[in-house]
């Protein structure tokens, strides 16, 4: 995991991505009790698209990692030092989540992790069964800044959905 993060940090150092943060289940793990997951979701803010078609390309990411020997895929996951990694483009809500993510360390390596408030909003947006479980864990087991959460949900049109499902939650 340490080497995985070092490889991902390399992308930022080399200017291949503007920024990144750990999202998804592993980010939730930072804030709640351990639970099972398969992969490491990395939200990346790529460099601005070039050309008329305005295509955001992940190829520079994949090529840079390939040059370092990471070219083994397991389904949709790129294997980096034995960890299946999925890169996701940070846009809108997820871009804000990366911007506001907290700096932390894992095994002595610096990284950024999406905060509980943004995770709730992101899980609420995706809202698969496994997302519902993670929202419940976040609401029950970590300190949520209500004002911050309300603000995020309102700005991204998720407040009514949240209220209908979780009411005042505590």
């Amino acid at each position: 995991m340490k080497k995985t993060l070092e490889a991902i940090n390399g992308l930022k150092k080399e200017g291949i991505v503007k920024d990144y943060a750990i999202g998804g289940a592993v980010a939730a793990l930072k804030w709640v009790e351990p639970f099972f997951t398969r992969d490491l979701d990395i939200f990346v803010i790529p460099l601005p698209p070039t050309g008329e078609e305005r295509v955001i390309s992940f190829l520079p990411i994949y090529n840079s990692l390939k040059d370092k020997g990471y070219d083994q895929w397991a389904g949709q996951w790129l294997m980096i030092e034995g960890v299946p990694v999925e890169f996701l483009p940070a846009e809108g809500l997820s871009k804000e989540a990366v911007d506001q993510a907290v700096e932390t360390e894992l095994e002595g390596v610096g990284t950024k992790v999406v905060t509980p408030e943004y995770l709730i909003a992101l899980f609420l947006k995706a809202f698969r069964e496994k997302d519902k479980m993670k929202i419940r864990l976040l609401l029950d087991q970590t300190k949520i800044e209500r004002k911050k959460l309300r603000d995020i949900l309102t700005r991204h049109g998720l407040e009514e959905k949240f209220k209908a499902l979780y009411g005042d939650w505590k």
Partner: protein
Amino acid sequence: MKSEIKIEIGKDRIVTLPELYQEYDKAHRIQAGIPFEDKIKALVDLQKIAFSWGKRRDVIVWRI
């Protein structure tokens, strides 16, 4: 009137069902506060269990 059911959970520790669930909640919150590194280790243990015991051959056990 029936007396409330109680459960013995240790030496001199008898609790009611609501108290037992409170204990569980408390234990989960304590787990939520352990270091990130330890949570990743626990995750890898869960992946090992899913792979071997649960026979989920599609699960990749992370190298840490």
